């Protein structure tokens, strides 16, 4: 009190903020992704761990180097590069050469994320775009799926390929759910993915809208297509990257609509497109492409579904309303 000239901090209200942080949100996503990584490692062996490690480390390294080089503030502390690295690894087959992981990380972090302005600015999902780039460039390595290294595992073609008409034996639905099947590292266990998603829902990191709209619309589509065959539909939902995509990739904040209706539209778009590509396209898997396509449409969806604000007048131009 004695110093009459003390000046205090002035800043705009509010003068209270909750303790959340961007890094905290990312940490929650990382925690939610762990079960799927553990299952991937159990199913495919330690090589899976190597792929995950290389992807995460290189994603963080690229982010660090890029921001340093461009003299931007170094943002690796926000953990978003870790999330991108994890998601990339989960979308790769276990036998991928490790140098391809590096290319994937580079595309995801430098080309897709940083070139467009960094966290929160990119219009396409970095991990998905990287996966597609790798898929297009190295189709062979990207579609050579290892067999699960577990007793009783069904070997041969992936379930999705079998569903699509390839020779092979389908695992049971239970095996599908717990990951005893071929596929990418992170997509093998639907149960682990669901567990992680439940955590994110409970922590209110994601809303139910995109996953439910995505999975729900795919289910309805497949049911109609199969004339009500529930078993077939269940296989379709558990196969490939559908759950990983619906729960963790389509819910990416930056590349999906921010508003409720927009999220539903986005999810339905993803679900329907995935089915269309799987059933009528020449590609075996449609999740990545459909999410990417919907990413691109996100600004349009947001514009078309702008939430109705409180007390909005119908028809009459807002300009006529005087400020109260």
């Amino acid at each position, binding site marked *: 009190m004695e110093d009459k000239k003390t000046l205090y901090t002035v800043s705009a209200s509010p003068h209270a903020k909750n303790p959340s942080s961007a890094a905290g949100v990312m940490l929650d996503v990382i925690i939610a992704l762990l079960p799927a990584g553990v299952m991937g490692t159990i199913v495919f062996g330690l090589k899976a761990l190597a792929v995950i490690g290389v992807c995460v480390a290189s994603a963080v390294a690229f982010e660090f180097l890029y921001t340093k080089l461009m003299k931007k503030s170094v943002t690796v502390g926000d953990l978003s590069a870790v999330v991108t690295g994890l998601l990339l690894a989960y979308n790769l087959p276990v036998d991928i050469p490790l140098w391809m992981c590096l290319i994937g990380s580079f595309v995801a972090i430098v080309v897709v994320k940083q070139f467009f302005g960094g966290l929160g600015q990119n219009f396409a999902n970095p991990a998905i775009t990287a996966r597609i780039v790798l898929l297009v460039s190295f189709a062979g390595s990207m579609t050579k799926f290892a067999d699960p290294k577990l007793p009783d595992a069904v070997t041969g073609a992936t379930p999705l390929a079998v569903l699509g008409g390839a020779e092979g034996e389908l695992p049971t639905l239970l095996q599908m759910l717990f990951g005893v099947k071929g596929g990418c590292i992170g997509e093998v266990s639907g149960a682990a993915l669901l567990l992680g998603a439940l955590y994110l829902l409970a922590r209110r990191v994601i809303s139910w809208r995109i996953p439910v709209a995505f999975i729900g619309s795919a289910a309805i589509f497949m049911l109609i297509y199969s004339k009500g065959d529930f078993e077939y539909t269940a296989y379709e939902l558990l196969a490939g990257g559908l759950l990983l995509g619906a729960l963790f990739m389509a819910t990416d904040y930056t590349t999906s609509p921010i508003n409720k209706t927009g999220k539903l539209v986005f999810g339905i778009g993803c679900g329907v497109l995935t089915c269309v590509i799987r059933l009528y396209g020449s590609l075996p898997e449609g999740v990545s492409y459909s999410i990417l396509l919907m990413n691109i449409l996100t600004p349009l969806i947001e514009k078309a579904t702008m939430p109705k604000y409180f007390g909005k007048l119908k028809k009459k131009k807002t300009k006529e*309303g005087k400020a109260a």
Partner: protein
Amino acid sequence: MAHTRTSALLKAVKKGKGGIHAPYHKITAELETVRMPAPEFVTLPMLQHIGAPCTPTVKKGDYVAVGQVVGDSDKFLSVPIHASVSGVVESVQDVKLANGTMAPAVVIRSDGEMKLFEGIEPPVVNNKEDLVKAIRASGLVGLGGAGFPSFVKLTVKDDKPIDTLVVNAAECEPYITVDYRECIENSWNIYSGVKALQELLQLQRVIIAVEDNKPEAIKVLKSIADKDDSVFVMGLKSRYPQGAEKMMVLSATGRVVPEGKLPADVGVIVMNVASVAFTARYLKLGKPLVSRSVTVSGDCIKNPMNVRVPIGTSLRDIVEFCGGFTEEPAKLICGGPMMGTAITSLDVPLLKSNNAVLALSAKNAGLKKETACIRCGRCHAACPMNLVPTNIEKYALKGDAETLAAMGTMVCMECGSCAYSCPAGKPLVQYMRLAKSIVKEAAKK
């Protein structure tokens, strides 16, 4: 039927969207209001309300008594200013206010006597025109923080009939407890104010709305209102900004106040509970608004408490009365932490609309480091007006007035829920203000 109804606590008719749960910090809730003795000087700015400033009606050297008019205006949107202590006018000069603006002010050196002005007598009020006149003369402005002249609210136009008075005792801002104390200490004044307003304005019903984290206040008010068929107590979910006017109207009546409109447009008057209690006292005694209660609180205040202070007392005197600081605060706030103004110095006078003075240490002052927006949507989820603050920020930085208007920028009430919730620590309210000024500028053209 009516009797069984009144004995029950009403529930909100409609639930608003969004809002936040902030720690209450109502550490002064159980402390009885303490009257502060007259300070040496009071500084009475001529602009303590929303509207036109007053012109001083006294000059240096004049003797004034408590309740005497020292400033008035002939403009419609204005209320007179009264001397809050007795003594001699020291000077008429420009002073800096808490919000940083300058205003002319009358400075009075107190003689310590607190002598009441002789001309004070209860107003004669027989109809609603008399009431409006009397309330204007009383100098009353919304005591809940907005500072809008109360007589304007009470001016009921024939083409806009009013059926409901909502008495706002939500007090949803953290720390502040003056309205709560009003309910506990002056419940009969509240009730008699309610009855006077109800009768003069011919209102069908009165709803006294309190957040449900104040069960004592609800109990006291209910014990009085239970004997009345047209006065109801409503318990609202404790959720900031429950006390915001439009939220209040929605919760209490289910009516939506359209953009650019006032509660009166949907047949409702909302009045702060302390304003209602003051109205009752004024109608009985005729003593204008010369003092008010403030909560002095925060983790840097030695003795947090509720104090009854003469208007115009410097915040420095008030803080000193409360024992000063325990440690140098990081932030000083005039008002609540959500909507109050951070001030640079304690040397500003207390205005009619100031309900709190807070001194907060760095860990409690909301000084979060700003990082990039992650588009998590929490600002949108928290916004009671269903706006998308992060997108509004984007268009504000582009200066796109048309899109901003279409997005509803102007309905933002600057409640701060968005910024409170943002993990990236973005100063969203600042961007909302920028966006509003862009829309306003464009509308002028």
